[in-house]
């Protein structure tokens, strides 16, 4: 009986393999260059699993940009963001599927780990890639075709320490770090260096992993006498830690980084708990300018909540690519190599103003040059802190 099952399974296997290669081979001849009428933008991000919300935000932001660009009638884009489940192995599979699909330009991956796993494949194959939110400096170090839209982790740590010291928010800092997350450890490390230089005292650091991110001993920070609690984390953990502190009746200054963005958008949240929280972000959906407002409205119509900086990063990457392509006179029937050459040339001089910054430029390493902004939450709304 088992044998029969094996036979059945193998038939299924062959069928699905055939289906798989069949789906791919349709576009096979276009693997290295697309003779079609659209520019194909590929990328991957976590659309399922614990990190899904970041991937979904970037994907939705990018979709809005593509819809807007296609409505202009000029260069036409086609977007394909695959699900990499925040896993390097799956990201490599996604990359392969994207090349089968005939990708011309790439948004790399949403998160750092997968970006690192595929960056050198992009570099080898000569495909231009710009990660919207992979913030580790190691990513763009993988090659000169790899660019970045968001701040690097070290920049955020430095900016946070500088701001605390300059504004005199306090001198004793306690850090909560997620030790299995390279984003968190990266920001925390640079923060500690800069804090020492600026005369801030790190009175303690609590390290946790995603496996034990439930119970936070907030009393440790309280005992250490910390005036500032620095949170280089994403907003779910931020929310839990701030609640744990407040449950003890302990109210220090909370200072988050760009991962905090989105905390106010969680359904059911009592915004009063975030009163007075500082955080770094390149984007605030409540900003009064017209571009942000129109983006926020479109995003709301799609997902039913306000966009965070991930969505804005996704939107900006598509527009930066669009601006570079139109400035370089690209057409949709160019090959990947030609498009890549245009991008490499244009990004030397490109000056792009988008949702996440004014007058952004890129240096030769592929890093974006823009200043982090500090925001403060006052009566449930974001206010630019001076």
């Amino acid at each position, binding site marked *: 009986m088992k044998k029969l099952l094996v036979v059945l399974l193998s038939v299924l296997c062959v069928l699905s393999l055939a289906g798989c290669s069949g789906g791919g081979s349709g576009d096979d001849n276009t693997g290295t260059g697309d003779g079609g009428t659209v520019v194909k933008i590929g990328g991957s991000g976590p659309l399922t699993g*614990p990190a899904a919300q970041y991937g979904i935000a970037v994907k939705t932001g990018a979709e809005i940009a593509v819809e807007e660009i296609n409505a202009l009638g000029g260069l036409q884009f086609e977007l394909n963001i695959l699900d990499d489940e925040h896993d390097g192995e799956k990201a490599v599979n996604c990359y392969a599927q994207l090349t089968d699909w005939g990708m011309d330009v790439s948004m790399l991956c949403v998160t750092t780990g997968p970006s690192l796993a595929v960056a050198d494949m992009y570099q080898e194959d000569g495909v231009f890639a710009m990660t919207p939110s992979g913030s580790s400096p190691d990513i763009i170090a993988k090659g000169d075709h790899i660019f970045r839209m968001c701040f690097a982790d070290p920049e955020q740590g430095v900016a946070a320490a500088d701001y605390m010291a300059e504004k005199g928010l306090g001198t004793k800092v306690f850090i909560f770090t997620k030790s299995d997350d390279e984003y968190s450890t990266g920001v925390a490390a640079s923060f500690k260096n800069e804090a020492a230089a600026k005369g801030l005292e790190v009175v303690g650091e609590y390290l*946790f992993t995603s496996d034990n991110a*439930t119970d936070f001993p907030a009393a440790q920070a309280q005992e250490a006498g910390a005036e500032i609690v620095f949170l280089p984390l994403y907003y779910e953990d931020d929310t839990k830690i701030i609640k744990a502190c407040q449950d003890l009746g302990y109210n220090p200054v909370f200072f988050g980084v760009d991962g905090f963005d989105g905390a106010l958008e969680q359904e*059911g949240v009592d915004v009063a708990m975030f009163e007075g929280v500082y955080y770094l972000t390149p984007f605030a959906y409540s900003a009064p300018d017209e571009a942000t407002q129109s983006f926020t409205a479109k995003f709301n119509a799609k997902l039913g909540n306000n966009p965070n900086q991930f969505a804005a990063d996704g939107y900006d990457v598509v527009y930066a690519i669009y601006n570079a392509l139109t400035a370089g006179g690209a057409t949709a029937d160019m090959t990947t190599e030609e498009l890549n050459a245009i991008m490499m040339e244009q990004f030397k001089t490109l000056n792009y103003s988008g949702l996440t910054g004014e007058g952004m430029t890129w240096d030769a390493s592929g890093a974006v040059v823009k200043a982090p902004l500090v925001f403060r939450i006052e009566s449930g709304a974001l206010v630019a802190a001076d």
Partner: protein
Amino acid sequence: MKFLSYLISGIRLGSIYAIIALGYTMVYGIAKMLNFAHGDVIMIGAYVAFFALYRAGFPLVAALLASVAVCTILGITIEKLAYKPLRSATSLAVLITAIGVSYFLQNAALLLWGSTSKIFPTILDYGFIELFGGELKISYQILITIATCIVIMVCLTLFVNKTRMGKAMRACSEDKDAARLMGINVNSVISLTFAIGSGLAAVASVLLCATYPTVTPTLGSMPGIKAFTAAVLGGIGSIPGAFLGGLLLGIIEVIAKVYISSELTDAIVFSVLVLVLLFKPTGLLGRKTSEKV
């Protein structure tokens, strides 16, 4: 004094583990299967309670009852659809099916309710009691969590030991065939076990989210694994064992975090488990089974 306050938060975490572990242990005791979907039933319970409290504006008790009702029905449905057809299959086949159910629930939640976390409303905010002249503050929420756990433990023990249905359960866990010959409806006993386990999962979900307020589709997986570990630590199949194992695991986790090394907490927690099993191969309160030829 500080140690005492950490100990208390360890007991709070442990109480929640204990309630979840009770669900694992009861199902294991009767159906002899590891129900890996249990953690995801907790997640569903958390979402139901959230919607009842926040969107529908139910009072706490009504929301809790709604959550318990949905989870109980869900537990029975899963059992009838996915596990019952496999009653005569190997335990591994059931294990894989349970994993399939777990994937299904997680991804269904992701599709239905999205990936953005939802924040559980504050429900048990009654302030603190102060002991030792204000040196030790214990919130009523912690006391309620611990008290709930103890009440559940006592009720469950009484139910299993004193009632007719409890007797039937014990009979089934000893020997299903013999129980059937005695006129016990084994299927309905198993269904009842799943119902109780899932109902407890709903209670655990409300307590869990009252303390750690973020509700996401993967909310249940880690507490699920930890509670499963707790059930084994205490001796799987034993109700007092689950209680003891849960408490111990919670306390060890919090104390190890604060006093030994926060980076290595998980390694420490699981090393304790391995050490305990080295000396007590069937867990702390597990029954020794002697093999027969």
